[in-house]
Structure formats: structure tokens, C-alpha cells
């Protein structure tokens, strides 16, 4: 099974109803690598990811996989190559972890084919990769947020796709659990060459884990490349309208963005308004 694909967004215009949110994005996903889409709130990054997963159909342009439009491929066949973990999936009440992860085998099963040993192995492997074998009989409702997120990722892993899309897989998690989840994902990428495309909010986490960053602003792709090359103070200003200082992480040499705040910064920059804010904060 080849894990390398040509996975391309060709001038896609995507939106809800008639209002386009993504305006003609062109990009090629580097297969076998980790890509992260960044951008301010409402810049169209989740919409782009949904179009890439065929949840939304572009009104112009297309998303293609190995030269074929993904909306023309049979749904189950596509689901064996391309997986998605949406932002808020719903767990049926009281379902056991093993059963939920087993649902990831759906595209591999037919109406007549029952549960096979291959299905069982895929589920076991996914549980092991996420370190949740001991949770397999527990009900998903009883788990903590971090555990539950690992269960959902395990479900996506059980699908055994070459490409995995994740929409903000670390929202609502504290920093330790964020790092844990992203470590597991980058391990998945290294051991299985799974192509990973994620939307992430935290720019520093994105810079740390991405091989390639796609930066979006107002529905357009404005920069792409390795984090060390493209994450600059200018890009931050353009994407987030944020004044910042970009330094290099002493451990990994990946760029780190330090935002400049208006309160409590260098006295030399202090104009009248900022000073009142500062003193108000101090008074409080």
C-alpha cells in the first residue's frame, strides 16, 4: 500500500449557502508530512479543512486526490484513504471505548461483511498507539477530556487512512494534554508516514509540530512553507493583526511568537492611553 498521494486543493471557493468563506485557495499537501493551517478566527481555515474532507463542496475549483475529484469518488473508498476528526464529534450515550473506536472500521465493512480479525487488529493497534488499552471497556461518558480526545483519535486511526485531517484536536485541553496528543500524532506520522493536516489555534504549538504551515487570512492563503522560514513578525501582523517578537526555541530551534501587549510593556512606548490602562490594572 502506497502512502504517498497527490492531494491538491485547486482554486477552491467554498462557503455556506451563497456566501463564500474561502476564496480560491490553491495548495498541495505534502504527503507523509505534518501540515498545519493557521489563521485568525473566522478566516476560513476550518471551512477549508471541511472542503478538503468533502464535508463541503467547493462552488468553484476542486479538491483532488491522485488526480480525481474527491466528490466524484465512492464515499466508502475515499473514507479508506482520507480520514477526518471533526471539532465536536458526538459519542452515543454509554458507548464503550472499544465499540466507539470500532466504528472507525465502518468504511472497511460492507452490508454483508461482519466484524473481522483485521478489524479487531486495527482497533487493538489504535488503542495501543493512544495508550488507552486499559480503558477499552469503560464508557466514553466517564472519561476526562484528554482521554476522550485520545479515544476519538484512536477511532480515526482505526480507519487506517493514509491521510488524516484534524480540526483543532487540542481545543479544551490543557498544555500538557495538548503536547501529549500532538506527540502521539507526530509519532504516527513518523512511524506510518501518515499525512496529517490539522487546524491549530496555538501558533507556537503549530510551529513546533508542523513540517509545513499554511497561513490564511480572510479566506485566502497568504503564506506557506516550513515554520522557521515563514513565521515572522510581519506575517503575524498580517494574519492576526498582532504586534509580536519572534524568537527561536532553544530546544527545537522552531520559531516562537511572543505577543506584545499594550499593558505593562516598555515604558518608552507608553503613550497616554496605555498608561491609563496600566494604572487602571494596577489599581485593580
Amino acid at each position: 500500500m502506497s502512502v504517498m498521494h497527490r492531494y491538491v486543493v485547486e482554486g477552491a471557493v467554498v462557503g455556506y449557502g451563497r456566501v463564500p468563506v474561502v476564496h480560491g485557495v490553491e495548495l498541495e499537501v505534502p504527503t507523509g508530512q505534518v501540515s498545519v493551517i493557521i489563521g485568525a478566527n473566522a478566516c476560513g481555515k476550518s471551512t477549508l479543512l471541511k472542503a478538503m474532507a468533502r464535508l463541503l463542496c467547493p462552488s468553484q475549483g476542486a479538491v483532488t486526490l491522485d488526480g480525481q475529484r474527491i466528490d466524484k469518488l465512492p464515499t466508502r473508498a475515499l473514507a479508506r484513504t482520507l480520514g477526518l476528526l471533526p471539532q465536536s464529534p458526538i459519542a452515543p450515550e454509554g458507548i464503550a471505548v472499544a465499540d466507539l473506536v470500532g466504528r472507525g472500521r465502518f468504511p472497511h465493512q460492507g452490508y454483508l461483511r461482519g466484524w473481522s480479525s483485521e478489524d479487531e487488529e486495527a482497533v487493538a493497534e489504535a488503542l495501543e498507539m493512544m495508550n488507552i488499552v486499559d480503558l477499552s471497556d469503560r464508557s466514553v461518558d466517564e472519561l476526562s477530556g484528554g482521554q476522550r480526545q485520545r479515544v476519538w483519535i484512536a477511532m480515526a486511526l482505526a480507519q487506517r487512512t493514509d491521510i488524516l485531517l484534524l480540526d483543532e484536536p487540542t481545543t479544551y485541553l490543557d498544555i500538557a494534554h495538548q503536547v501529549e496528543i500532538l506527540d502521539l500524532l507526530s509519532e504516527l506520522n513518523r512511524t506510518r508516514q501518515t499525512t496529517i493536516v490539522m487546524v491549530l489555534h496555538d501558533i507556537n504549538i503549530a510551529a513546533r509540530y508542523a513540517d509545513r504551515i499554511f497561513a490564511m487570512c480572510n479566506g485566502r492563503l497568504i503564506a506557506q512553507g516550513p515554520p522557521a522560514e515563514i513565521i515572522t513578525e510581519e506575517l503575524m501582523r498580517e494574519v492576526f493583526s498582532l504586534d509580536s517578537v519572534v524568537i527561536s526555541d532553544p530546544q527545537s530551534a522552531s520559531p516562537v511568537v511572543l505577543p506584545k501587549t499594550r499593558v505593562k510593556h516598555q515604558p518608552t512606548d507608553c503613550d497616554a492611553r496605555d498608561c491609563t490602562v496600566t494604572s487602571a490594572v494596577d489599581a485593580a
Partner: protein
Amino acid sequence: MSDALAILRQGRRRRWRRRLLVTGILVALALVLAAALLMLGNTIYPAQDVFRVIMGEKVTGASFAVGTLRLPRMIAAVLAGLAFGAAGAAFQTMLRNPLASPDIIGINSGCSAAAVTCILLFNMSGAAVSAISVLAGLAVAALIYLLAYGREGASGRLILMGIGVGALMDAVVSYMLLKGSEYDIPAAYRWLTGSLNAMRMDEMGSLAIAVAILLPLALVLARSLEAVELGDETAHALGARVERTRILLILCAVGLVAFATATTGPIAFVAFLSGPIASRLVGTGKPHILQAALVGAALVLAADLLGQFAFDTRFPVGVITGILGAPYLLVLLIRLNRKGSSL
């Protein structure tokens, strides 16, 4: 790896065994209740007499009481129970809400309103009334679906729309009863409270065919329901055809409800109760439409036995299931309220 596999196999086998056991017990329970319904009555006939009648032998007395009176009653109870139970569980699982059963969201009321209108306003009777009530059930489902379609929180919206449409349909029924001629009203009453009285063998055909086709179809669709109940986005990502599954399943479930209502009238709360009872028994993990159908059959049979023999007066089956169901509806509403969930 082998450890994980062993743990998984063990857990899956345990859940599978429980499922099988529960299903077996439910089948046995339904059979016992069905047999009781055939044996009991003004005259109690022993099992062998009942068996001989079913095999087509002539037994003095028993042939009429069992063959002509009790057998159609039992068959109607089983078929309607299966239909209501399966339809309720299908709706509840699909919309992820125990309140979303067809009897709560106004589909039964739609069938009844159409039937009562046909009887009282247009002096129709027989198969034509049943056919129109089936169509009305589908039309009400389509109306609710369109009113609630394609927006955020569609499930809660759909339930509220359904309750509203149901109230409207009940108002139609009340109006018709006021306007209808007294002579026709007894025929209309059958459509208001589910009853198994005066069932005839030749009325069973359409319901039997509907159950024989639609129930297996619903069970096949339950496979896709496993993906659909994870939310639309996950279901799409797993390669399920969400809209198609949903529409086919709605058609199936509404068909089952409509045909059952056309035969026995709306037996209150059977659709609403069967799914939650079945899910308590088998545990979740897979849709439980088959088990809910069996629970439905057992419920209707048991309620009819109670209605016939437990009190001085004979009550129609719908009265008994109504008494059982209403407290559960209250408990459910209180529980949902405590969880702070909005429908």
C-alpha cells in the same frame, strides 16, 4: 499487541453474549405472552387445543374462540408491537434523543387525524381510510422534516416542531369529533385509543407485509446508523451516506407506524418506551432496533393481557400502555431538566 487483542476480544465477546442472551429472552417472553393471550379468555383452553387450532384442526369451541377471536388479536398485538418498537428506536437513535419517538412528535396524531376526518367528514371506511392514514403519516413526517431541516440543533428543533404539529393534529381530531354525526363516532374512536378488539384475520395482511418488508430494511439501515449517530461530520468522514440513510430510515419508521396505527389505532407510548427499555437491557454500543421491536411486541401483549384480565372492566390496550408510559415521560423530562440539556 496480543494483550490488547485478547482484552478486546474478551470485552466484545462479553457484550455480544449479553446481546444474544437479551434477544433470546425477549423472544421467549413474547412467545409466552402470545401463548397466554391465545389460551386465556372466557374459557381457558389448554396449550394442546390451541396448538391444534393453529395447525388447522377443527376443535369444538376452541376453533371459534381461539382461531377467529384470539389469533387475529394476538397477531395484531405482535405485529403492531414490533412496528411501534422498531420505529421508536430508529427515530430515537437517529435523532439522539429519547423524546424523538413518532408518538411524541405527532406522526401517530397525523395518522389519526386523517383517518378520523375520512370517517366523519367523507363517510369513508375500510382500506381507503387506512391508506389515507398511511399517506398522512408520511406527509406529517415530511412537514416536520422540512420545517426543521438543515439548521443547527436540528434534532431539538424537530422535536419541538413535531410536538407542535402533533397538537395541531389532535385539535383536528377534537373538531371532527364535535362536528361528526353520532352514528359514525364509534368507528372513529378506534383511531383515538389503540385497541385490539374485533380484529379480523383479513385485516392483518397489509400490516404483516409492511412489517415483513420494512423491519428488515430498518435493520440493514441500522448498520449506517452506527456512523450517523456520531454526528453528521464524523459520519461523512466515515463514508456513510448521511442524508440517504436518514431519509430511508424515516420512511421505514413512518411506514411501520402508519400501517400499525391503521390496524390497531395509536397504542400510546409503545414506540416511546421500547427503545429506552431495550437499550437498558442490551447496553449501548450498537443500535438496538431489533431488541426494541421485541420489547414493543412484549409490551403490547402484556398490556393487552392486563387490560383484559386484571380489572373488572376490560380496558383497551392503549389505555394500559398510556398509564405505563406517562410516568416515564415525566421521569425523562425531569432527568433531562436536571442534566440541563435543552431537549
